[in-house]
């Protein structure tokens, strides 16, 4: 058995992949969410989504569709790309959510005739 195989064999004591604790998972999630939130704030303050919203939406759709396509394919390269996409999707989701909220607020605050 190769070293790589050993390191993923849960039958061997001490070689199973380490499962992150809730705290670690939370930290990891925050690290992914934080860039999205920061970028969202910067975009809102500088351009109020006039151009960034479209980029965010197109980026999110492309990333999600690509991830779904790659999920059906095997291969180490695909796995690497999927990892990158996963890391990209969460900040994009945050940006998108901020944009949607911003747009809805804009509509709801239109003055009545």
């Amino acid at each position, binding site marked *: 058995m190769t070293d790589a195989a050993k390191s993923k064999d849960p039958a061997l004591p001490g070689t199973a992949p380490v499962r992150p604790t809730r705290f670690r998972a939370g930290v990891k999630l925050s690290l992914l969410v934080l860039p999205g939130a920061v970028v969202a704030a910067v975009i809102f303050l500088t351009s109020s989504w006039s151009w960034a*919203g*479209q980029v965010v*939406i*197109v980026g*999110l*759709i492309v990333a*999600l*569709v690509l*991830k*779904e*396509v790659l999920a*059906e*394919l*095997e291969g180490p390269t695909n796995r690497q790309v999927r990892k990158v996409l996963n890391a990209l999707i969460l900040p994009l*989701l945050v940006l*998108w959510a901020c*944009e*949607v909220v911003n*747009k809805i607020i*804009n*509509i*709801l605050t*239109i003055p*009545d*005739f």
Partner: protein
Amino acid sequence: MDFTNILNEHSDRDRLGETEPPTPWQSILIGNTTGSAARVPLEAPTLKSLKVTETEGAVKAGIKTASGPETAVEPKRNFEVWRLPNSWNLHVVCLALITLALVLWGLALPGIDTRQISDYGLILNLPPTFFAALVLLTFSFCLIVRQSEARSVKILLLLHLVALIFILHDTTALIYDTPRYSWTYKHIGVTSYIQSNGVVNPVIDIYHNWPGFFSLSAFFTQLADYQTALSFVAWSQVFFNLLYLGPLLVIFNTLSGTWRLRWLSAWFFYITSWPGQDYFSPQAIAYFLHLTFLAILLTYFQVKKLPSLETVKRYLPFKPVVAFYYRLTNTGRTRADETGQQNFRPFQWIGLKLILILLFGCIVAIHQLTPFITLASVTILVVFQGCRFRTLPIIMGAIMTGWVFYAAAPYINNNGVIFKHHFLSLFANLESNSVNISNATPGHAFISIIARGLTVSLVGLAILGGLRRVRKGYRDVRVALLAFAPIPMFFLQDYGGEMIYRVYLFALPWLAFFAASLFFPAPTSRVSWKTWLFSTLAGLVLLAGFVTVYYGNERMNNFSEAELNAARFLYQTAPAGSFLMKINQNIPNKFTADYNQFVEYGLMAEDNIQTYRDKPAPSVDQLIDLMRQKDYPAAYFVFSRSQDEYTALANLAPPEWTAQVEDAVRSSTQFSLIYNNSDVQIFKLLNSETSRPAIARKGVSNR
């Protein structure tokens, strides 16, 4: 190979009436019931149902078991069982009945008087032969459903549904000279605009911001070498209803393996689809795409493996919530749900996913409301473990918001207040969707009551059918959730008072399925007289309600050739930029390629700057002031029969109101009658070419 055994096996299956050969074409047409993913997914959850399944297996194997109606290979010939001696006789009888029904319908058409339609709609003008045709067709359909052989009657059942669609939806196309509904003409206008200019112009109106349907129509009109879509739109209702049949049968196939239930569900769908959203409109094609989308999703994207209790605990707080969710998602499952998925190749799965995304993209570009309901349906399926394509709602949400906020930005930026109206006001939206029948004419009130009765009847049948399914051991949780999915739309807005129709329409396939379940909740080899009698009676009652309601507003929905000719004259002679005033917009209007060149104005339209709805008739001076507010090159006032009918039926004003306005215009020296036929009078405001700034924007207050 022993072919005799194979034939015997098929014979037994057919006798049970629940299985079909799994050819790809039949999977699409009728559905595959032999173990593929399309088969069992959403039913048979409990021990009881497992027993039934086992018993069926025993029956197929030719083993007689101890109990249960499904165990009999040969139905007992007792007083409860009624069977024709030879099934082919029945086929011939049913074919004769279909032919007779169509002949009776054909004979009825020339006898329908479309000029004398009362408040009760077309129903009083329909000759007895029309109703006889429908009764015969219903009787014949129920006779076939009672038949025990599934395989040999599929074509017959399909023929019945097609005949039903033609009788119900082709009647108006054949008896009227012009297409129904004033909105149809607006849609023709947008199509003609795109046909002429080759592009859309988002600043014109809302249609240019969701142009999918119009672009497609323009393309096909061009392809068919027609000058305008007016040539064929009268057939839209037949066309769209035929289109719905395919995805509906696939959906019902995924919901149940019982062929009787599937076909009766489709029948119930067509005889209760009264909101009339199947005319030449974006929502009609969007509805077809919505059904196709759900058909693919329900057939191929079932969840293979449900999350364990431990996994649910990780994601949900509170024990009762966890227990409720776990129970809800774990009911209605069979072993087939876990193992019955199609073994597609990766590229086939990718293709299916891309088709779904593409379909939703089309829906988004076609209609404003449908994407919200599709998204709600998919989200419910994903949340409650009915769909394994879990990122789909996010992709759909991103596509939808992208279109609404950016592609349709020209409209949203100028008319965003429309979306704000009654946002999150459930009770206000419900109130504005309810018709006040206290002031309506007796006929119109009657139609409204029948419409409500029809809806309540269907919902009542659906509840009883759902309960009967539960008693039989089935847990159609996802079907129930899909029926509820459109209801949150009431929180968004009232959709111009039409939300209730849309919610009903999108819940209809699931309600129809449950309603049909009342009569055929589970597979059975025989149908008792009682079941046959009650299903026939229910079909006839619902059909009577449908005919009453669907043709109920024909007094205002149909237009004469004279009205269309008058409208043609107006658009051909009026200079660009003219002001066209009417009592209301219920007239063929905006159907030309240059429709955006005219300013259309209805005195009673709520979105006008000065509406006279529920107010006294304006004086001629007030009318002239309105028509000279701007320097229009010309101004016209159009009176027509269908406008009067709409005013009366919608109870916008007393009958003398329109007459007063017309008399005032006719007797005024400022107006000249330039066109007159049996149904339309067009007056032109004299000297309107010269502007009169001294009186502009003055004196428009109410008397």
